């Protein structure tokens, strides 16, 4: 209750200056550029107005104040398990699926929200799935330039990549407007540098990378190599044992920190 009151107050405070720009890509772009001009200090970054439950729902984010206790608890348990297996310190975590449609993005963004729930932690979700850009849709319908632009342009400042969301303490890096056909984007060593930077910049920041299905996509394998840990999402009733084993083999020993079973149809009673 206290949290929601604070959020309400914040929303009211920030509602007026932002209101005219909402819903328009150009305004977002302008907003990003403004951030870039200001010098990219995270502490000084603008806080986007918190999303209403309806906005959360539209974006496929679990309302942690809502009544879906099972989902909330599951994600909290997942967070706790990840923290326990990581030991002390933050980490970069690649979330990949066994097959397309595993719900990788759903897990990545909600995991980000779950980390951000903790006031002592922040989360940044990096969208690396060039086919399914659902993370990139989080800030707005037209995300503008993102990771691919950054990787192809050495002059592109890091700060403009990080975009605020309606969830406190959670930021997003969109995948960018580059065409899917643009080959080996993620082999660029700047990506590694970027990820390291994102992790090291703040010790309370947890970097979550949304990747395509690992067994089907080369990008995912590269990304898995770049991250500290890999989480495999197994969709309910869609893959066989061998596919799971193939995905685990693709990740390789050491980096694989866990498996989650997603979209388990709980009894709606």
């Amino acid at each position, binding site marked *: 209750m206290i949290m929601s009151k604070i959020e309400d107050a914040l929303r009211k405070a920030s509602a007026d200056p932002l209101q005219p720009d909402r819903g328009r890509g150009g305004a977002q772009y302008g907003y990003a550029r403004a951030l870039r001009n200001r010098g990219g200090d995270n502490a000084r970054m603008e806080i986007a107005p918190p999303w209403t439950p*309806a906005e959360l*729902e539209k974006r*496929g984010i*679990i309302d942690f104040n809502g009544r*879906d206790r*099972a*989902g909330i608890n*599951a*994600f909290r*348990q*997942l967070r706790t*398990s*990840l923290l326990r*297996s990581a030991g002390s310190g933050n980490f970069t975590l690649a979330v990949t699926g066994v097959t397309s449609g595993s*719900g990788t993005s*759903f*897990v990545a963004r909600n995991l980000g929200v779950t980390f951000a729930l903790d006031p002592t932690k922040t989360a940044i979700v990096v969208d690396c799935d060039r086919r399914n850009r659902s993370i990139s849709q989080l800030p707005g319908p037209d995300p503008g330039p993102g990771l691919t632009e950054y990787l192809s342009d050495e002059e592109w400042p890091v700060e403009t990549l990080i975009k605020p969301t309606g969830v406190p303490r959670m930021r997003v890096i969109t995948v960018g407007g580059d065409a899917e056909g643009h080959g080996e984007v993620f082999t660029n060593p700047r990506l590694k540098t970027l990820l390291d930077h994102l992790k090291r910049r703040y010790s309370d920041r947890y970097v979550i990378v949304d990747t395509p299905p690992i067994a089907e996509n080369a990008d995912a394998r590269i990304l898995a190599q770049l991250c500290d840990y890999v*989480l*495999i999402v*197994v969709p*309910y*009733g*869609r*893959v*066989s*044992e061998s596919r*799971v*084993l193939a995905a*685990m083999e693709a990740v390789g020993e050491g980096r*694989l*920190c*866990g*498996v*989650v*079973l*997603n*979209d*388990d*149809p*709980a*009894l*709606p*009673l």
Partner: protein
Amino acid sequence: MRPESGHETVRLFLKEMIRHKWAVAFTFVALSVLGFGLGIVWPDRYTSSVTIDVEQKNIIDPLLQGRAVRTAVTDLSRNAREVIDNRSFLLAALQDQGWVNGPDAGEAARLVAHLRSRTHVTDKGNNLIRIDYSGDDPQKTYEMTRELGHLLIQKMLQSKERESGAAFNFIDTQVKKYEDELHKTQMKMEALQDAHPNTQPGASDDLVRRQASLRTEIDNLEQQIREARIQEASLQSQLSGEAEVGAVMTRAQRYQSRIADLTRQLETLRLSYHETYPDIVQLKQQIADLKDSLKQEQERARANPKAAEAADIDATTRSNPVYQKLQQALYNVHTNIKTLEARLEFNKDKLADLKKQSHDSQSAQSDMERLRRDYQVNQDIYEDLLRRRENARVSKNLDSQQQSEQQGLSIRVQEPAYLPHTPDGPNLLHFVLAGSGLGLAVPFGVLLLFLNLDPRIREASQLPPEARSLLLASLPHTYFGHQRQGERAALTVSLLLMLACAVSVGVLTWIHMSGAA
């Protein structure tokens, strides 16, 4: 599906059931309605049955023990099925019931096939045959069942009567045959009797006895003849010896007896007189003369004995009384021998005759014996057959009486046909229940099969062991906004649909069945 616990299985099953609620609901509705529809259009089937008791033990058995043999009908019960399956039998039943009237052979054949398929014969043991018939109409079913039972009994009784009649006829023929045989034998015996009047029983014994006595007599006669011959020989020799002795004796003896006489006189005289007495002297003289003569005679006899004998025999012997006596005896012996020989001859003839007679008698006797034996045997058989014929007649009458009375002593209707009131077989309720049951079972079974065969992972326990150890969480499906309510509503609607379907089908079934009843 390899869940490790039953609880997990149920949970998984329920989850999948809810996931596919529409398929489940529609399958249930479709199958329930289908079952109801089938039940409505399914024709009612009425079954009636008649039970026939074959060869029931009853009072007639002990009464007729050993007198009449009841035709065994147990075999009939065994092939009652064949009897009923018989085309002519079924056709007769159809005609009796008036189902078949016209000469339409195709229609008749169709009806016969129909009746055959609807009729079932069961051997219930203890000589009970049950005939079931199922038809579409209760009244017709009842009538046809009654008809089938009636016809079967009639058929069995007819068969029995035919059998016992055939048995009677056979025995009757046999009786007649033996009667002829006996008559013929009797005639033969009479003819033989006429030809050989002696061939009475015991005649041969008499003959034998007579032969034996004849033989004894012949033996005696022969013995007597032998004795007589010995006597004859002895007399003959005595006779010839006597003649000779007589001849010799006569002269010498006469001399000697004269001498002895004279000597005796002399002795007597000497007692009274002296030697010199004249008489004595004379006597002495005479004796001396006689002695001389004797001497001469003896010498002559010694010199020519035969001549002396022959010369003297006739004269001497004939005059000899001994000789004559011997002669007499000899004659007697001769006569005796002749008589004996005649008798012997006669007896021998008689014996030969007897022997011949005996031989004839024996052959006639053996013929007679044979005939008598034949007669005896035939008579035995004849009498036996006569008895049997009477038994067969009783059996025949028994069967024909049963046939005429239709309620036999050995075949009777144990349980008559009845008018079926309620249709048997599956009724509407069964169809509805089956449809609803299938409506539940089919999705259930299909889902169970699908879950068992589908290798896709639905549960943590289905994960490979390597992955299971790494499983951090199982994230439930997230319902955003009103999705959950929508899902619940859908579930409720599907359940209500099933319920409504079940209730409406149930109510319709009840209405239909109460209306039918």
